[in-house]
């Protein structure tokens, strides 16, 4: 046993929060999440919900791409599966939202497994292209299978409901989205405390050695696909309840790239990074919108430049982080923390 911060048990040593200070800050954070909707205006509430959805989806993609090393361009497609599942079930069965969301996750996971099957034979970028193919097919199905998906017009749905309570406002949706996001991030954290998470990382770092050390590559790659697309499916389902309409254009290829960017900017293979990346990438367009609105009185043309500027900023963020800060916002965050924990003695 070590001296100093020695833990009495291995149990305590392997806990998520290993010090009272950490527990305190986390409790404070949860409290802030709880108080936020009571103080926030409609716009901030809307943003809070968006960030929550993005956190779930980014965490899912992080499991697959950041931790297992399988790059996916199909995230939007998996979210679409979740979104359409929720829409269809709520229109046709009136099931309450926990059931529809679960179904959304499970169906997306099933599709994820199907898409992951080529990983039996191909890997790396070839696999990324298989996921790209999957997103093309899914988009095609969303657009063309009119009897189920409503074709290009899509589906509109009723608000989420449970025990007679309906969640039609952003305020109420917040209390579905944010707790679910916290729960799902914790579940992901748990996975990486067990053999399954270790297997994922081993596959990312050295797949051949991992196999020789006893990890069934196909099984764990598919498991990663399933888990990741389950998260995407739930996020897509929440998206459907939040906007109450899904169309094929709700889940474009650029959305897959958005989530990849969130994972990279946040920090690949780092759950905290996923959260930071999701929040950051969701807020950037909003900040840009505010800027544009502020500039419009002086430059009436400003709104025209908004969308191309966004493309440029997204692209530059991806390139910039990859070149200059490959460990993403998570690394910056750690640096800041280290600074303050040593402050004022060292800098």
């Amino acid at each position, binding site marked *: 046993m070590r001296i100093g911060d020695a833990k009495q048990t291995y149990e305590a040593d392997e806990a998520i929060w290993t010090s009272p200070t950490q527990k305190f800050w986390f409790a404070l954070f949860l409290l802030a999440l709880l108080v936020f909707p009571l103080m926030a205006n409609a716009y901030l509430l809307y943003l809070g919900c968006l960030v929550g959805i993005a956190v779930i989806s980014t965490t899912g993609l992080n499991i697959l791409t950041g931790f297992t090393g399988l*790059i996916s361009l199909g995230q939007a497609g998996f979210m679409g599966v979740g979104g359409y599942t929720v829409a269809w079930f709520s229109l046709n069965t009136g099931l309450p939202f926990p059931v529809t969301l679960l179904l959304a996750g499970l169906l997306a996971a099933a599709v994820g497994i199907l898409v992951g099957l*080529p990983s039996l034979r191909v890997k790396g970028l070839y696999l990324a292209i*298989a996921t790209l*193919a999957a997103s093309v097919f899914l988009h*095609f199905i969303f657009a063309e299978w009119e009897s189920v998906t409503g074709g290009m017009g899509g589906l509109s749905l009723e608000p989420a409901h449970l025990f007679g309570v309906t969640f039609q406002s952003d305020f109420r949706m917040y209390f579905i989205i944010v707790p679910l996001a916290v729960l799902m991030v914790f579940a992901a954290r748990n996975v990486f405390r067990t053999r399954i998470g270790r297997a994922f990382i081993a596959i990312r770092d050295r797949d051949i050695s991992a196999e020789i050390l006893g990890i069934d590559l196909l099984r764990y790659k598919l498991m990663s696909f399933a888990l990741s697309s389950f998260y995407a499916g739930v996020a897509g389902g929440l998206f459907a309840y939040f906007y109450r309409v899904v169309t094929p254009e709700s889940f474009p290829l650029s959305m897959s790239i958005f989530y990849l960017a969130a994972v990279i900017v946040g920090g690949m293979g780092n759950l905290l990074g996923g959260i930071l990346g999701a929040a950051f990438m969701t807020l950037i367009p909003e900040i840009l919108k505010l800027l544009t609105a502020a500039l419009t009185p002086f430059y009436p043309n400003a709104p025209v430049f908004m969308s191309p500027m966004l493309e440029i900023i997204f*692209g530059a*963020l991806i390139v910039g982080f990859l*070149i200059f800060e490959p460990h993403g916002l998570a690394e910056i965050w750690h640096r800041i923390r280290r600074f303050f924990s040593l402050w004022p003695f060292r800098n």
Partner: protein
Amino acid sequence: MDWLFFGEISLAGLAMGGLYALIALGFVIIYKATRVINFAIGEIMMFAAYLFLAFAGGLEMSPWVALPLAVLGGSILGGVIEKVMIRPMLGESPISVVMVTIGVASILVGLVELIWGADPQLLPRFLPREPVFIGEMYLAPKIAYGFLIGAALLILYLLYFRFSRGGVALRATASDQAAAYSMGINVRRVFNLAWVFGSLAASLAGVLVAATGGLSPQFGAIGLSVLVVVIVGGLDSILGALIAGVFIGWLETVAGAYLGGEYRMPATFAVLAVILVIRPYGLFGTHEIERV
């Protein structure tokens, strides 16, 4: 079945496929030399096409001056991208490098939209307009002449790689980087050269394709078709790029004509999916050896 119609469609498809082959060639050159999968190739094409639009339309140059200038511009763009954004990534994981090219694509789309606006545009006409008949089959002149120009460049290219010093250096680097380096080949320059040449092929094809179908900031989506071509043909195979290019171009056009435009992508991606399952490294690609 109307065989004449089928023949005409097929012909148009094959001509389009010829252009795909040219783009795919550019893609494969970059991949062979640098092992980078360039997701921005469609956007480089688009950029060159917009340059052509600016030179020939805005500045009212003769198209035959504007064309080489635009192609030159696209090639320089490729070289700059390599130097500024790809080179710092040397030795990083392939996933990261691919993501950089995706980022580059996004930047280019934004830039183009910022400069030239989001609306679709037509390029000034510069190809002969007399209808072309092959036997009884009609072929739109833009497509026919586009194909001819593309094919000419393609042949020049192949000759260049076979016989020139630069071509030999490129091939040497592609087959064994370390050996090429120890033989005194400047590998960095070869990487840059590969991007310049790859972008050159893509730029010319970009102008030709835009001349037949118009231009908008979404034009870069053609990169997806090219991706299908190179995966089907094999990422590191020039022969594969040529054959798969022609085939995918044909298939896309035929599927579009008979089933409807919404079937173009699913049709080619279905071929891609089948290839990934039965021949993961493409029809002519080499399977990389793995060691512990």
